[in-house]
């Protein structure tokens, strides 16, 4: 027979004053040791400073949300003997016993029980309420019965049935004691400062009395509740490590740990920040311009820049677009329309003059060609479209604010520009105002 599993989850909250203590659950609530043995430990009410310790095996944080933190516990690879694994969880670096939640996870071991009984008897074995068998003995009355033994088992009842009689024999089981939980809070001592030592004794422990022995440290008991102890360990001066053991009063060691004493670190000035490397910057801006008369309209630009290494200078290529138009009556002929579309192709240097926190103030200067298209139309003669070429030089001031990976900015730009043909005189510049955004390519 197989052992009967307890239904559902087992929640063990051993602290009476557990309002601030984490709530801990294990899934499964008991398990059989083997190569695939593992358990998920879910901790709620943990908070950001959640700490955990385990008496044996490895405890690894797997998932963390605002509501819970989930750990995965795996036993040592060679663990086969039944044991009661202890978990302890708390928050912060100075817990009391009331702040600590302890969870015990029973782990059973598989073994074969060698039985000698009457020849050809039908044998059943009971261990801690679980039944195994029946299995028939050979003609010499021998058989081997596979059983699972939990950490709380003390004996096995062998029931041999032959014909109309049955015999019951009790075999004592000798199980190794389960290890204790010994945790240090914090895990190391900063410059010899005292730490807390938590000792939790499993309820399978038969020996009475508990003591913590530390080599090169002073041990003081702070709290005791049942079989749990919270002690204060103060390393002696000049100690770099403090080995300690938790043992029974007869000297049988149940857990051991080593406290590291961290020496004060010499103050090393932080290295100067590395000079900014070369970087590519892309951006765009929209706005308008006013240059007198009909030299006014909307404008936009795409800017590609390269920030020079070690210098607060950015070389920029600006490709823009501007538009302006006018409509004028001409004597008795009619109305003449003139529209100009300009594509500035300009080079600029931007000096990142001030950088305070997220705020940036830059000064720009540059110039280039204005390539455009001029269109004449009227209600008295034919239309004309012609290419238009001009130039521009400008200076500008930009104010920006770094927001995450991008920098929105505004720009005010006085510009001197001219575009002329046989049929056009225009200055598509003057005073310009733009709102833009740029970002550095990573």
């Amino acid at each position, binding site marked *: 027979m197989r052992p009967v599993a307890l239904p559902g989850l087992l929640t063990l909250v051993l602290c009476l004053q557990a309002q601030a203590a984490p709530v801990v659950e294990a899934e499964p609530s008991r398990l059989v040791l083997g190569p695939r043995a593992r358990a998920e430990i879910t901790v709620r009410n943990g908070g950001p400073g959640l700490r955990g310790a385990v008496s044996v095996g490895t405890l690894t944080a797997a998932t963390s949300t605002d509501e819970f933190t989930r750990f995965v516990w795996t036993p040592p690879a060679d663990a086969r003997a039944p044991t009661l694994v202890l978990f302890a969880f708390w928050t912060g670096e100075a817990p009391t016993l009331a702040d600590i939640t302890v969870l015990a996870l029973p782990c059973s071991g598989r073994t074969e029980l060698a039985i000698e009984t009457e020849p050809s008897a039908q044998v059943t074995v009971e261990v801690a309420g679980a039944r195994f068998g029946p299995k028939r003995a050979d003609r010499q009355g021998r058989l081997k019965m596979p059983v699972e033994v939990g950490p709380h088992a003390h004996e096995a009842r062998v029931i041999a049935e032959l014909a109309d009689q049955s015999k019951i024999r009790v075999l004592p089981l000798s199980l190794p004691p389960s290890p204790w939980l010994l945790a240090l809070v914090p895990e190391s001592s900063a410059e010899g400062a005292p730490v807390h030592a938590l000792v939790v004794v499993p309820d399978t422990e038969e020996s009475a009395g508990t003591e913590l022995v530390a080599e090169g440290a002073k041990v003081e008991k702070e709290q005791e509740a049942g079989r749990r102890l919270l002690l204060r360990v103060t390393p002696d001066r000049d100690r770099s490590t403090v080995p300690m053991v938790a043992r029974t009063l007869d000297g049988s060691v149940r857990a051991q740990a080593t406290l590291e004493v961290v020496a004060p670190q010499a103050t090393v000035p932080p290295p100067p920040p590395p000079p900014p490397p070369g970087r590519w910057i892309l951006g765009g801006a929209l706005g308008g311009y006013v240059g*007198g008369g009909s030299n006014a309209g909307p404008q936009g630009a795409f800017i590609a820049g390269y920030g020079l290494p070690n210098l607060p200078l950015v070389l920029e290529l600006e490709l823009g677009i501007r538009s302006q138009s*006018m409509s*004028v009556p001409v004597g008795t002929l009619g109305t003449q329309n003139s529209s100009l579309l300009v594509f500035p192709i300009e080079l600029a240097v931007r000096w990142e003059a001030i950088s305070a926190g997220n705020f940036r103030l830059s000064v720009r200067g540059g110039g280039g060609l204005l390539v455009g298209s001029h269109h*004449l139309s009227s209600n*008295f003669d*034919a239309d*004309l479209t*012609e290419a238009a*070429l001009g130039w521009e030089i400008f200076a500008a001031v930009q104010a920006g604010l770094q927001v995450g990976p991008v920098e929105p900015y505004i720009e005010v730009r006085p510009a001197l520009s001219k575009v002329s*043909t046989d049929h056009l005189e225009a200055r598509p510049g003057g005073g310009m105002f733009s709102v833009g955004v740029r970002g550095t390519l990573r």
Partner: protein
Amino acid sequence: MSRPLPLSLLVLALAACNGATLSPPTVVSVSPPDRAASSSGPVTVTVDAVLPTVADHGAQTVTVDDRLTMKIGPRPFGPSHWADAGVIADFLPSVLPEGTYDITVELGDGRLATATGAFRVTQGFWPIGYTIDMIGGQTSGVPFGVTMRAQGAPDGGYGGTVFLSVNGATVSPTISGPFNAGVRVEVITVTVANPGSYRLDVSDLAGRTGHSVNFQVRQ
């Protein structure tokens, strides 16, 4: 040393693309496209052109050169400036002999268009002569009316014009308006250097003539 060359070439290439050469004007249509040599009346020539224009966006002004010179054959036609979106209409007297004529258009910047053989003058049907009603005494330089009559015109009467002249004086106009059903009342001005007796002579393209009786012109 040679690095600036491509940039220079680029600037030159861009500069070469600057502006536009205006296309010559085009005679789109002539209405009517032909006419008898002995008739007169309005002719409409439609021209398509880009006028020489300079738009100054700073001053918000547009300057347009609207000068125009148009001829049908050797005959000047239309106003001396662009009008009515290029639809040029004018009165054409019966002064062109039978034949085919070019229409030429010249804009103020010298751009020229010729519509070869666009207007054709066909054979005319002329009267045999002209009479002029009695003209009383006149004052030099003061307009007065005269009534001219075409004699022996074909059906419907003569519809052309005649040349006017006064021997020893100047007369204006030198070409009359169109005859209507063989009659034309024309207001003319005769200017003389010396008072005296003068005679108004008329003639047409076919060589038919007529004249008034002598009339006194005083200063």
